[in-house]
């Protein structure tokens, strides 16, 4: 089964923490350039990144209160309506009705800004399948892979990783001894056995169940025989046919210090995973994200 992306679904567009009040960020989704921004009070909006007046990218503009101001001619657009509310060159003119930016539905959950480019996108995605309490889900980082969204999703569905909590002393290398995967309608089940390079006798078994939710969210429930279990979550963002965003989240109850090292642990894995996907045609040995 391959991952079928459906435009009617919601996609994780940006990490919430990367957009502070009165800031604008932009990136593409389905080849559409989208600006996401916060009013000074923190309210979030996702708009087509183009001023209806002279086509300027709105992401170069700035925020005043609840208004996004285009850098080119200072046209003001009201956050709640996306309608032009003020034209500095003609202060007494009411913004024409046609001067309205295309806006997209958006909301925030699990540290991510979710958007849909289709106005009639149904209810918010179902997060209950994460099987984790909301406060125990942590945003790790976003990576961008130069491969198609379908392929990236397919590879991540059975990706092998070492859960945080395992000892990865300096110089330790992962050697995957066996791995087996069984794909089914809504995901995959798989196991892997790996040994650390330092102690050749020590072997750890990882068992995973990946569920594909809302087509673009992979929830990987993992368990190893060292007593570590939880979820690793990938929220995929289709940027275009050749580029995919992957927002990496993980679950767990951590102290603030171990949360930082858990983030570092999965961030390092995510970076190597990207390298592995982009270079998957090299030696099979290199496909191991821990080497």
């Amino acid at each position, binding site marked *: 089964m391959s991952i079928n992306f459906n435009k009617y679904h919601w996609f994780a567009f940006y990490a919430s923490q990367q957009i502070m009040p009165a800031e604008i960020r932009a990136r593409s989704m389905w080849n559409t350039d989208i600006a996401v921004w916060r009013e000074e009070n923190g309210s979030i909006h996702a708009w087509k990144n183009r001023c209806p007046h*002279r*086509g*300027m*990218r709105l992401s170069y503009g700035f925020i005043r209160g609840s208004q996004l101001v285009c850098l*080119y*001619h*200072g046209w003001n657009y009201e956050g709640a309506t996306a309608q*032009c509310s003020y034209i500095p060159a003609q202060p007494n003119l009411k913004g024409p009705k046609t001067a309205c930016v295309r806006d997209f539905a958006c909301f925030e959950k699990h540290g991510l800004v979710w958007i849909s480019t289709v106005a009639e996108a149904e209810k918010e995605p179902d997060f209950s399948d994460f099987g984790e309490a909301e406060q125990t889900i942590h945003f790790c980082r976003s990576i961008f892979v130069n491969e198609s969204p379908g392929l990236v999703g397919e590879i991540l569905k059975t990706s092998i990783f070492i859960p945080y909590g395992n000892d990865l002393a300096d110089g330790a290398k992962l050697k995957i001894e066996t791995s087996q995967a069984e794909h089914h309608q809504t995901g995959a089940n798989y196991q892997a056995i790996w040994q650390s390079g330092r102690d050749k006798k020590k072997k750890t078994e990882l068992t995973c169940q990946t569920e594909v939710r809302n087509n673009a969210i992979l929830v990987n429930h993992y368990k190893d025989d060292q007593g570590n279990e939880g979820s690793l979550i990938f929220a995929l963002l289709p940027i275009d046919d050749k580029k995919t965003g992957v927002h990496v989240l993980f679950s767990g109850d951590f102290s603030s210090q171990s949360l930082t090292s858990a983030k570092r642990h999965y961030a390092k894995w995510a970076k190597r995973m990207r390298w592995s996907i982009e270079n998957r045609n090299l030696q099979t040995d290199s496909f191991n994200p821990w080497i």
Partner: protein
Amino acid sequence: MSKIVDPFTLNQWYAVRTENKNGPDRTHRTRLLGVDIICQDDENGQVSIRRLDRTESQDSELPSRKRYGLVWTSLGMPESGIFEMPETEEEGRRHFVWDAVTVKTSGLRAIENFLDLAHFPYVHSGILGEEPLTEVTDYQVERINNEIWVKDCSFHQPKAAAIAEEGIHVNYIYRVPHPFVSILYKTCPLFPEKFDVIALMVLPREEDVCDIYTTASLFDNVNTDVEILHFQQKIFLQDRLILENQVPKLLPLGGRSEVSVRADAASIAYRRWLLDNGLSYGACTG
């Protein structure tokens, strides 16, 4: 040629080099309307220009003229000579020709931006405009001998030119004698009854890439050439940020994809004039 060039665009003169710039072997290569061309100087400084998509037997020689410190050519059959700028001959002016800056957008977007007053307080904030003095008062747009003239523009400018020491009320006249050229006459801070002349001569390399040559004939007895260049560059780079971030790169002539208001009268007149003259190169229909 990547696209059939409309006759209005094809039959114009284009600046392709400054008079004094030359590469090794006294040659200079560039691109005009999607065609590679080469300029070659002989010992006497005469410039011959050839297009490289044709062999010599196929009539590759192009016309060559020198004017306003620039070398001009055409791929078509211009009906007349290069437009006149008689004001530049006035006594006491200093003349500048600045070498091309490549901008990744349609040359038409660059000309339209040059004709625009409303962006001064935002793009050239603190120099050519400043909030809250953002209002563009009504101005006149006329077509005279198939040129566009924009008259009676005025704007408050904190620093209208390198020589300006304080904010002044500046009067502007724009002239568009050519789809890729615009000439600006603006109040000289030194002699308020006189006009400085600044012209944008755009070389469309491709539909969505252009080289912009700027010339100026100014009254300024204080600043050095370099100081004046720096003032010019600062303004230019601020505009380039805008130009390279307008979507689409081609100028929409259909009047549907971009909303206009009265302050855009010059832009609307320019677009209509291009459409009436059958221009399509560097433009789109939206």
